[in-house]
């Protein structure tokens, strides 16, 4: 009985059904795998090397301006794009979390089984719609409506810091944020729904047995237990929002100014790269690549945070 698996004949380890000669089969099989693996590593390395090397001159010449400066074409200032990315994605996140949390709770706890299926299907459906469709919808349907109804309404609430409805033209940071919110809603809802459903039933029953009402069970037991995982869902949605390109490019107006008034056009990193790309000189391209690196770092950071939260949620539930 001494370590029998290690003493198996080599050919026994990679037996694939029907082969006459296991040894031959093993060799072509593993070559294919090895080639695929090397290809993967090579393409990844090439990708990172090319965007970093293409943007390197910009980082060497004007790294500070790239992050804090404004204006495009002398030195290249990335601040309007960075700020716009943060504005749109964070605003979209807030909107999506408010609506999405309510939706997820409703799907899991409140609505009858039949309606639950319909709601869940709609959520899945939203996820399957291509970005361009969202963009066109935002520009052609939402923008005119917001111009005639929503901006004046917000203005009448006294939210004048958002800008003047009379000076607004349609595409705006707010419009892009709302479109983004709708786009990231499915990701947030479906993960939040899973996280909430994973809260152990006996914790819910324990709360009920202590005289908790249904709302208390949700507010005091389910949400606190799921909190970390919901953060994970939010960050995953945020990662999606920061990288979204086409829908934002169509709805934000793509003007490279630092813009605090949300009724007016602005830009984001992704939409700026997409729209400025066509008429760029080789130096411009370097600057756009540098923006691309920035976006990659932001997205990667947000994704990692999301993973960290979700793994912490797993650990919490493992302890329960």
């Amino acid at each position, binding site marked *: 009985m001494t370590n029998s698996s290690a003493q198996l004949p080599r050919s026994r380890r990679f037996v694939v059904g029907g082969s006459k000669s296991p040894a031959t089969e093993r060799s072509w099989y593993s070559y294919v795998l090895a080639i695929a693996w090397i290809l993967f590593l090579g393409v990844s390395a090439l990708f990172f090397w090319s965007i970093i090397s293409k943007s390197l001159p910009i980082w060497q010449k004007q790294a500070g301006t790239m992050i804090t400066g404004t204006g495009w074409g002398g030195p290249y200032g990335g601040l309007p794009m960075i700020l716009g990315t943060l504005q749109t994605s964070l605003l979209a996140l807030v909107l999506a979390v408010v609506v999405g949390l309510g939706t997820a709770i409703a799907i899991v706890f409140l609505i009858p089984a039949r309606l639950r299926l319909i709601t869940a299907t709609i959520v899945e459906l939203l996820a399957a719609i291509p970005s361009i469709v969202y963009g066109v919808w935002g520009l052609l349907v939402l923008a005119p409506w917001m111009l005639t109804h929503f901006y004046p309404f917000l203005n009448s609430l006294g939210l004048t810091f958002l800008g003047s409805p009379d000076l607004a033209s349609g595409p705006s940071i707010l419009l892009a944020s709302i479109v983004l919110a709708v786009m990231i809603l499915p990701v947030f809802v479906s993960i939040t729904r899973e996280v909430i459903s994973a809260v152990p039933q*006996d*914790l819910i029953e324990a*709360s*009920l047995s*202590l*005289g*908790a*009402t249904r709302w208390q069970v949700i507010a*005091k037991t389910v949400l606190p237990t799921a909190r970390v995982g919901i953060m994970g869902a939010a960050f995953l949605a945020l990662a999606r929002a920061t990288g979204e390109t086409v829908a934002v490019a169509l709805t934000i107006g793509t003007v490279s100014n630092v813009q605090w008034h949300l009724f007016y056009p602005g830009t984001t990193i992704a939409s700026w790269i997409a729209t400025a790309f066509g008429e760029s000189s080789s130096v411009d391209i370097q600057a756009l690549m540098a923006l691309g690196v920035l976006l990659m770092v932001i997205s990667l950071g947000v994704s990692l945070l999301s993973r960290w939260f979700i793994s912490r949620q797993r650990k*919490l539930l493992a302890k329960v």
Partner: protein
Amino acid sequence: MTDDLTTKTTTSATSSGVKVAMQLQDVAVSFNGRTAVRDATFNVAANRVTSMIGPSGSGKTTLLRALNRLHDLTPGAKVTGKILLEGVDIYGPNITVTELRTRVGMVFQRPNPFPTMTIYENAVSGLRFNGVKKKSLLDEAAEESLRAAALWESVESRLNVAASNLSGGEQQRLCIARALALKPEVLLMDEPTSALDPIATLRIEELMSTLKQQVTIIIVTHNMQQASRISDDCAFLLMGEDRAGELIEFNTTEKIFNSPIDSRTLDYTLGRFG
């Protein structure tokens, strides 16, 4: 059959004049029209331990969960018959279910303290659900219930530590403390030691014998030795031919184990099946 049952279910409690905490009258539970347990008629004597025993599928846990209306939230669940708490029908119109559950507490199979709460917060969670905010009241209740659950000495210095740091047995005693903090009249225990090691099990059993002075205990257990060790009265349930559980016999534990009326009870307690 009915006559048979009534003769069998003469309770030790009523015959010896002990106060009755809960009365079950022909209780049945069904899910979507399918009966899970039926024919449950017996009295639960106050300040005693009543055990419910029987093989898997005999409906012990289902019956137990009817006693604090935990089936209310299960779609398709229906409880028929009467369950009286101090003479009042708990499914009657004048009962608030959240209030009922503070009077009939529950401890579960798996130790399940709230994972995001500290030991202290767990102990007072029931009071907080019920709107108690005053710190002094909460402090007092925490100490009192943790003492009652024989946990105070070992956690006194670390009340603000997450409850998940406790051992399994300690966690289960914390769950008992959590239920006791509401000063319930009845404590339902659903196989409370099945996830615990023998030493932790022993401590919970010892705890139950002291706790019954302040609270009536109804325990579901798989373990016949446990039922015979700790309970005063015993209900034996069995799965019928239509796969619905039913009450076979109810009596003092001593009689159930030594001189049962029904031969099936004898077979089960002797370990001939189950």
